[in-house]
């Protein structure tokens, strides 16, 4: 019997498989950041251990950095201490750091791919659940906790149960104004925020194949929002073209060797998945969330479901979510006013996202009732945007182009949405308080966010493109 892509990569990284124990899985690349690593470095110190393979470890500061005046010392004391601690730890343990001020600094899941660190066939982990992003290249990539960060530091390995596999096929052509973010929000709305738990998901089908690498990253990024530990897409010419020539990509003979291997990375015809789901791209319209988990999404022209249509024991939670959002059973979302628009996060802050937003807002201005924050994913994205004059388009539209970081996606720094305000956001989570205490988040694509920015309301972007 053939193997799935996940099985091929997994099996190539098993150091030891023993009955009654999880597999010992070798990790090629370990990405770290300031928030989930300090306790792991501390653990090493207590055990008197070094980082086993520091050259396979890359650090950046992203979660807790300001997105204005990054050249100045961080004002907030605890944040400054945490970022300084990362610098100190990386120095002590010999780990490469792309910290504030470095031209490669940025959101950890943006810089890995753009530097060519993310490659097909690799195993990659990070103390961040959106590590699944890197699966877009045909890698096994997943988020881990801090105890596991310490484990990888100490041994370059992880104890892991082999996951179940799920294939999600999306076939057909996407409609005008519908993109990768809409695909993934649609899938999650269909299978729920827990529908992928226990699985690694392989995305396939013609609609997935037609996406750029940026689009594929958006899809894989949100795998965790349906509970899946990881998501991946078999590498193809689009993948190889993206990786080639990047800073840490193989070159010369090494490239040829790597490419020959990468071309074997696909699920065999007769491979067995534990679950297979199929969707039609033509059924997908621009999506938006109305509740407090990413599974609570609808097509933009649809109405919010009624509480009574939910399973009885889940009705209190559903009602609680609508109360939090200030919404009612059966209402339309179209036309609702918006207070903030956030375009950023590891889901949608890459150059393609910024280009798409800029192309849409060119010659337009933001609505008076909206504040618009654009947070590029990395220093390289920021530099490229400036090179292309995208910064000028945003400036003319009244959008604020900030500096790279996770920013209002999780509201850990000062980029918080005020209580009670509605934020149309290209990020990945609409949990209660995610963007600030009592902030109300509605997840959308960059294009729908741009449309909300210029109209000040929730609108169907298909009528504007």
């Amino acid at each position, binding site marked *: 019997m053939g193997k799935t892509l996940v099985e091929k990569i997994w099996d*190539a990284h098993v*150091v*030891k498989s023993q009955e*009654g*124990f*999880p597999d*010992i899985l*070798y990790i090629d690349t370990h990405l770290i950041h300031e*928030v*989930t690593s*300090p*306790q792991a470095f*501390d*653990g090493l110190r207590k*055990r008197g251990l070094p980082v086993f393979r520091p050259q396979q470890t890359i650090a950046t500061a992203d979660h*807790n950095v300001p997105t204005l005046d990054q050249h100045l010392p961080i004002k907030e004391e*605890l*944040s400054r*201490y*945490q970022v300084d601690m990362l610098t100190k730890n990386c120095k002590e343990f010999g780990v490469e750091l792309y910290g504030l001020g470095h031209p490669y600094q940025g959101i950890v899941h943006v810089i890995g791919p753009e530097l060519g660190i993310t490659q097909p066939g690799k195993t990659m982990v990070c103390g*961040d*659940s959106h590590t699944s992003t890197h699966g877009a290249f045909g890698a096994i990539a997943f*988020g*881990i*906790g*801090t*105890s*596991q960060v*310490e*484990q990888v530091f*100490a*041994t*370059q*390995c992880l*104890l892991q*149960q082999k996951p179940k596999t799920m294939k999600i096929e999306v076939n057909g052509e996407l409609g005008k104004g519908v993109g990768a973010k809409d695909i993934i929000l649609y899938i999650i709305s269909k299978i729920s*925020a*827990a529908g992928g*738990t*226990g699985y690694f998901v392989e995305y396939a089908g013609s609609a997935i194949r037609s996406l750029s690498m940026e689009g594929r990253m958006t899809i894989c990024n949100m795998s*965790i929002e349906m*509970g899946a*530990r990881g998501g991946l897409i078999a590498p193809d010419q689009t993948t190889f073209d993206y990786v080639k020539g990047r800073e840490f990509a193989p070159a010369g003979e090494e490239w040829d060797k790597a490419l020959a291997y990468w071309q074997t990375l696909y699920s065999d015809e007769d491979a067995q998945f534990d679950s297979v789901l199929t969707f039609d791209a033509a059924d997908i319209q621009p999506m938006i969330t109305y509740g407090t*988990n990413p599974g609570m999404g609808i097509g933009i022209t649809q109405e919010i479901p009624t509480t009574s249509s939910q399973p009885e*024991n*889940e009705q*209190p*939670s559903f009602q*609680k979510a609508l109360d939090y959002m200030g919404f009612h059973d059966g209402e339309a979302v179209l036309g609702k006013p918006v207070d903030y628009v956030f375009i950023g996060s590891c889901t949608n802050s890459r150059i393609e996202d910024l280009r798409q937003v800029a192309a849409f807002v060119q010659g337009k201005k933001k609505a008076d009732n909206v504040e618009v924050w654009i947070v590029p994913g990395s220093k390289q994205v920021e530099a490229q945007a400036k090179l292309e004059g995208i910064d000028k388009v945003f400036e003319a539209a009244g959008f604020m182009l900030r500096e790279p970081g996770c920013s209002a996606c*999780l*509201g*850990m720094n000062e980029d918080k949405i005020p*209580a009670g305000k509605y934020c149309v956001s290209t990020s990945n*989570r609409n*949990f*209660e*308080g*995610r963007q600030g*205490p*009592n902030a109300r988040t509605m997840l959308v694509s960059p294009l729908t966010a741009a449309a909300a920015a210029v109209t000040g309301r929730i609108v169907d972007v298909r009528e504007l493109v």
Partner: protein
Amino acid sequence: MKKFEKLASRVVPLPIENIDTDQIIPARFLKATTREGFGNNLFRDWRFDSNEQPKADFVMNNPTYQGKILVAGKNFGCGSSREHAAWAIQDYGFDVVVSSFFADIFKGNALNNGVLPITVPEEFLEKIFAQVFANPATALAIDLEAQTIRIEETGDEFIFEINPYKKSCLINGYDDIDYILSQREAIENFEENR
């Protein structure tokens, strides 16, 4: 790591589905660089209002309900991988979380810190909630060796599943790093031969 064998305790019921780790510990409290002290901010925005006053209608502020066991709706611990969620639960004083479904990363993080996540069927969970709301003094008895969870007042019992390796780690207080460090030679062999 703390050892876990048996526990009999009253419970704190939280019948809400999809409790994410941002609720368990909001991001603004993740700035600490040690593992201690997160319990004060467990469920911060559900426990306290914007003036830092306890919200009377939240179960953790109701002295009727207390104990070392948290019982919650399905898909507990979804979202962010922050291990701070497990640290906060433990630091507050919970040794066990019971739900009908756990998110993967949270489950792993809990086990790695000696907090036992017990998955029970939906009907059993409903029984616990019904019993606890009818009689807040209701206790659950948990025996890890036997893998049983029992509602003391009614005698309802369920045999739960746990990975045998993880079970032995909890009972003996070992962590993964102790085991994996012992496999160093195999790891170096793997690196040389790939």
